[in-house]
């Protein structure tokens, strides 16, 4: 249903209630796949585009975020925005979004400090959950941003922060993506 049609339908009703059903009708799901401790998740399986795709949709506003997943989603959405602006060379605008993304994600790690390649959110439904790695990636990009803004002190500061979050991520999950970020910091 497109936006115009939806508006038409909504004008006929006072309120629409969308309810995602619980477990009563649940089909038994396959268990979440487990991986050996040192398994390195390849880029084809865990990558930024997949993370973006999982978190598109309803936009999270900072003032409305109340649950950990709101903050994670907000962090990813701000990151996507920042990445687009970065590619366009809009350093100041990109900085704002990447910093905001980190603000969201810092809240996430306060409550769930460990990254997970596939976090089981309900009955076998999984999401890529890498708040530490996303912050490390944001910081790597912020190094470029600050260098272009001729702010070497801030560039050094975000590099140190990014290396910290990268190490935190690697404590719980190994990904090819993390190796790329590590190389980026070298």
């Amino acid at each position, binding site marked *: 249903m497109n*936006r115009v049609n*939806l*508006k038409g*339908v*909504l*004008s006929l*009703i*006072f*309120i*629409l*209630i*969308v*309810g*995602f*059903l*619980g*477990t*009563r*009708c*649940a*089909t038994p*799901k396959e268990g979440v796949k487990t991986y050996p401790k040192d398994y390195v998740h390849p880029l084809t399986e865990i990558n930024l585009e997949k993370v973006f795709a*999982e*978190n*598109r*949709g*309803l936009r*999270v506003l900072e003032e409305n975020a109340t*649950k950990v*997943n*709101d903050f994670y*989603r907000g962090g990813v959405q701000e990151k996507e925005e920042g990445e687009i602006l970065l590619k366009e060379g809009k350093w100041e605008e990109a900085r704002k979004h990447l910093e905001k993304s980190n603000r969201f994600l810092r809240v996430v790690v306060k409550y769930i400090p460990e990254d997970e390649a596939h976090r089981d*959110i*309900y*009955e076998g*439904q999984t*999401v890529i959950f890498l708040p530490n790695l996303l912050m490390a990636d944001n910081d790597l990009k912020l190094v470029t941003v600050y260098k272009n803004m001729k702010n070497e002190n801030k560039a050094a500061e975000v590099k140190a922060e990014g290396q910290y979050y990268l190490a935190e991520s690697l404590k719980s999950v190994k990904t090819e993506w993390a190796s790329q970020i590590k190389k980026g910091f070298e």
Partner: protein
Amino acid sequence: MALLKVATKEKEQDLKKYQNEYKVSSPILIDENGSAANAYGVWNRPATFFINREGKIVARVLKEVDWTSNNTKNLIQYLLKEKK
């Protein structure tokens, strides 16, 4: 007021069984690949979203609740009072 029930990654025959068992008369939409749940940012179920005539989410309930309780009746009545 319209109510849409959405079942994520469920099989049709299980939903029919559920409708019969719990005498559910309203239709249930199937979110086959979980894309609707993703778009709404659903990380736990059940989850209920209240959308007003402007298409804005005005409330959400992210847990199981008794929809016949006074609290939820009051919530729905309050939301229905919203002007056109």
